[in-house]
């Protein structure tokens, strides 16, 4: 148990802490230390199937090891595509756009193969990593919900964005079709019936996560609200005099280069 705490849980806790430290703008050392801690934490979590093979928690490290590759490919691919378009600074070349599309496509196909073929995350005991059966349905359901919602947001909040929203609707359709296929056709390692069960349970998970997060936000908002309500009103000051207004106008005009 102590071994699992030192070689899995401590490095796992180190990841958000190091991210927090790396965001510190007070010193450059903080950023470097944060980055080093992040790499150490990541390596130790990914190595947990070997360092603490007997701990059930190491299955999380096993899962992260399996999904790290396609996740990086998909996200890096999207980064290349996004920054090869009309961005004001740091624009990438057209070649990067096609490379990004290729990486995104390979990443998504990799995820699909992990479900349908023999690349499914399997533990040393030979059974499917149960966290994969939690991760994958959650990922697919979240992706379909977010893509549809973002597509609708583009249509109703944006100005004439129907052409752009099509990509998001296409992704939503593709994800829903994938889920429905997986719920009806057996893959090489998991039956469609098992997948159905995990989809229903994933929806229960998402409902629970939403409920828990909303409860926490409401609890803390109550404290802030009660404090803010009791704050004294700021003291009102006299309106500026003509001389003060003239002085401000002079400063503004000298800064914006106005002749008048």
């Amino acid at each position, binding site marked *: 148990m102590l071994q699992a705490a030192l070689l899995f849980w401590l490095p796992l806790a180190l990841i958000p802490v190091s991210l927090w430290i790396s965001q510190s703008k007070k010193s450059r050392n903080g950023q470097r230390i944060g980055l080093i801690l992040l790499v150490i934490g990541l390596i130790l979590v990914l190595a947990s199937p070997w360092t603490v093979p007997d701990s*059930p928690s190491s*299955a*999380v490290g096993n*899962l992260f090891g399996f999904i790290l590759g396609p996740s990086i490919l*998909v*996200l890096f691919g*999207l980064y290349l*595509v*996004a920054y090869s*378009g*009309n961005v004001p600074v740091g624009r990438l070349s057209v070649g990067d*756009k096609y490379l990004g599309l290729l990486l995104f496509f390979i990443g998504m196909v990799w995820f699909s193969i992990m479900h349908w073929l023999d690349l499914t995350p399997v533990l040393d005991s030979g059974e499917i990593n149960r*966290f994969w059966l*939690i*991760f*994958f349905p*959650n*990922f697919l*359901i979240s*992706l*379909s*919900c*977010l893509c*549809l*919602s*973002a597509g*609708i*947001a*583009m249509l*109703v*909040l944006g100005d*004439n964005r129907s052409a*752009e929203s099509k990509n*998001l609707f296409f992704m*939503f359709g593709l*994800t*829903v079709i994938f889920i*429905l296929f997986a719920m009806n056709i057996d893959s090489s390692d998991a039956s469609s*019936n098992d997948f*159905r*069960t995990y*989809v*229903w*349970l994933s*929806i*229960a998970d*998402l409902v*629970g*996560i939403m*409920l*828990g*997060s909303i*409860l*926490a*936000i*409401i*609890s*803390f908002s109550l404290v802030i609200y009660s*404090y803010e309500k009791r*704050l004294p009103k700021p003291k009102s000051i006299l309106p500026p005099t003509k001389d003060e207004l003239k002085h401000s106008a002079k400063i503004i005009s000298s800064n914006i280069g106005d002749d008048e």
Partner: protein
Amino acid sequence: MAEGKKTSLRLVVSGLLFPIALILAIDYSMHGFPDLSMDNINPRIANSTLTAFILCSTFLLGNMYFYGESRDRPLAPLFAMIIAISVGFGTTIFFIEQGDMLLEDNGSVIAQLVYNISHTIVSIFALMLAFGIAIGILFSSLTHSKAKISGTKLSEEE
């Protein structure tokens, strides 16, 4: 104007829920309810609610320290902690009263606790990855769209 904005937001929120309803409706019409009883689903919702509450509260508690410091309210984090513990306690009692069900396939409370945290981390990672992909597609679509203001129109306006 405000009513139009409200309707738009309702549409966006319904977009979040529609795929879940669609998948469940299609699956239910094809195969009926899966081999799951409420005894399986309830602990799942209860455990993920409590774990998400704990993780989210821990994160927000860190922010409360900064809030207390900036507003000169040193007791703010303490009050927040008391309220969070009370809400968590109340929620736990509510879920336990639904039946002796918070233990899933795990043998002890500690094993269940560790499993819950791992489970929620995996679920949140899935959610974050999906969020990153959706935002990436949205951003890519926007940066590759045709300019809405043409050069001639700009020069005309000038």
